[in-house]
């Protein structure tokens, strides 16, 4: 089972910036004749010395190397523009690398977009054949699988209707079913699951998972949804700005991807971060600092102390601080509102120190949104300044606690123990 199915060696992909291919034959000929006569390029902009296109290069992928073995499900994560899609395009041979070698062992099935090659005039059944053939199946193979595909797609009733009459959900289901039943050795998916309802998404993930574990297929999966990555993959590759920065276990990889904006430092500047919802104004958070801890790490049950510095632009009364605690995947865990921190005069720098009770939080990494607000008479907040995902902190177990917490299944809150009100045992007979 340790056969290598895919190997990328030092793969780079270079793109030219600017109007790629946006030149006309006339311009190219003019440029050529000008170069032959050693004159200035007539198509270049005034003052521009060199040919305008060739001097700006962009490396979408920069020396990426990795190997994938048979039966592995590998997730590829990274921010927009990190090179994930480019990597998949190279592996699926849609475009060639500028440098390096990609070696593949076996047939590659790509699902970079569902329904590729669906023709609106053809019926569902005809399109299954069409799509399967484009993805590399022979007619015989499709014949053998067509019933299974139709069952999986849940659109049997409409299978002999032209797909132009389909709803978008039906379209996607049919397309995914074809792709999922490919007899390929390497399956490549680029967020195709973002469409389709939850039930169908789960069905697809289960199917992919099965393909990898039972049939020994190799799966490469790109997604921004960390939950589906956790469900499907047993290894992740993290890309950043075209470089491979991590290759290893899922949780670690996700942590690196989620964190690489900010490692847990004690002092955080806020003035250069995006201040959202700053509709009313009046306050502007400049910086904050965690107190009495190292690397923004707090032992479960201890208070998280921090000092917030903000500028006050106009006279404010009854100011409160609000924090929103979010999990690594940006799922809100809850909020905590401070007592009134006081009243401030215009044009002052305020500095408040607060303590947040972490005893309910399970171990893990959390992100904080900060808001400076006032509360109206109905108890609703009036946001004066708000910084989302401002910083993160880590909650660790007490030394005597060796338990492991699974955020995926249990969430982030450890409620206080249940009280036993009554307990008795009766003889069954």
């Amino acid at each position: 089972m340790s056969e290598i199915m895919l190997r990328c060696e030092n793969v780079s992909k270079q793109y030219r910036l600017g109007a790629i291919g946006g030149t006309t034959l006339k311009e190219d000929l003019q440029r050529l004749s000008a170069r032959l006569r050693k004159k200035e390029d007539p198509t270049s902009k005034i003052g521009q010395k060199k040919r305008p296109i060739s001097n700006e290069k962009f490396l979408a992928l920069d020396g990426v190397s990795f190997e994938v073995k048979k039966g592995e499900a590998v997730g590829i994560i990274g921010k927009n523009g990190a090179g994930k899609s480019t990597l998949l395009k190279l592996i699926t041979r849609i475009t060639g690398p500028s440098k390096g070698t990609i070696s593949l062992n076996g047939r590659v099935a790509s699902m970079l977009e569902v329904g590729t090659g669906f023709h609106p005039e053809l019926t569902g059944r005809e399109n299954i054949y069409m799509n399967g053939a484009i993805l590399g199946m022979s007619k015989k193979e499709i014949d053998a699988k067509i019933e299974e595909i139709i069952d999986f797609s849940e659109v049997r009733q409409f299978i002999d209707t032209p797909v132009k009459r389909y709803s978008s959900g039906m379209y996607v289901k049919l397309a995914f079913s074809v792709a999922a039943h490919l007899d390929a050795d390497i399956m490549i998916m680029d967020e195709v699951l973002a469409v389709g309802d939850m039930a169908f998404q789960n069905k697809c993930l289960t199917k992919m998972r099965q393909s990898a574990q039972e049939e020994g297929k190799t799966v490469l999966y790109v997604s921004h949804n960390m939950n589906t990555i956790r469900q499907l993959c047993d290894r992740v590759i993290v890309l950043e700005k075209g470089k491979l920065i991590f290759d290893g276990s899922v949780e670690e990889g996700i942590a690196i991807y989620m964190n690489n904006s900010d490692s847990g430092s004690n002092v955080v500047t806020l003035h250069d971060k995006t201040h959202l919802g700053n509709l009313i104004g009046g306050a502007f958070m400049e910086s904050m600092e965690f107190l009495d801890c190292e690397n923004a790490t707090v032992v479960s049950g201890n208070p998280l102390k921090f000092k917030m510095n903000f500028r006050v632009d106009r006279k404010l009364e009854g100011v409160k601080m609000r924090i929103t605690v979010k999990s690594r995947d940006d799922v809100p865990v809850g909020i905590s509102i401070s007592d009134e921190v006081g009243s401030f005069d215009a044009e002052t720098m305020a500095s408040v120190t607060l303590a947040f009770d972490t005893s309910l939080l399970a171990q893990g990494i959390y992100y904080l949104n900060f808001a400076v607000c006032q509360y109206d008479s109905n108890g609703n907040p009036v946001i004066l300044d708000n910084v989302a995902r401002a910083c993160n902190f880590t909650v660790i177990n007490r030394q005597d606690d060796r338990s492991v917490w699974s955020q995926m299944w249990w969430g982030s809150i450890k409620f206080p123990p249940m009280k036993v009100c009554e307990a008795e045992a009766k003889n069954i007979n």
Partner: protein
Amino acid sequence: MTENKKSDTAFKTVVSADKKIFDLKLKEAFKYKDMILLFVKREFVSKYKQTVLGPLWAIIQPLFTTVVYTVIFGTLAGLDTADASPAPMVPSFLFYMSGTILWSYFSSVVSATSHTFLANAHIMGKVYFPRIAMPIATAISNLISFGIQLAMFIVTYIVLIINGSAEFVLSWHLIFVPLSILQLMLLSTGIGIIISALTTKYRDLSMLVGFGLNLWQYATPVAYGLMLIPQNYIGLYHLNPVTPAILSFRYGVFGVGYFDLAYYLIGWAITLLIAFLGLLLFNRIEKNFADTV
């Protein structure tokens, strides 16, 4: 380094940055023959879906063109419809029809394949298959339309023979019929893929195709006989590889006409050269076309 080489041979597919010029990938295209057949079907079926007359349209177009040619070039302008003297007995209606169906096959394949990359960018940008499959499918699906037109031609021919206004002599000349169809297929696909490879960068060419084909038709004996061309220019005239294909087709079906072995072979040589160059250029472009289109 040697160790690296060794492990590479174990992989079935290796994609690297260096380009092999003479890798024509025809073998790979053959593996996808099921897909090519489906493309052919798709193109043919979707062309006539939701039309009342269906594939009859394949007949109507050349039929009316032939009628118009017969009236305008034959009757009004009185152009000669003979390829060689002494004038053989070929009804001008049949003469125009043979030229029209051959030319319409040639021009429709050229214009359809020249859009290969642009028209299928949405598929090609998402999934890999040998790109050459697309123009091959186009050439074949147009061959079906041509087959229908050829049947129409044969029926017309038979009607005219029964009528007594045409005659048919069975001879070995008939071999030129499939040969010239094959030649036109290679030639039109070759020209089409050269244009399609260049249009990924220069969109100007797609503008040129439409009216270029219109002009080209006048340099080809479609609506007039070869007799109209002055003797001095016959050699130059034959450099147009469509010319010997059409002349030999007519020579084949009518048993009379113009045939010159040297010109015929030159025509084939040009055809094969264009088809080969087309393949080379096409394979060179297809690898990175997704970045430039």
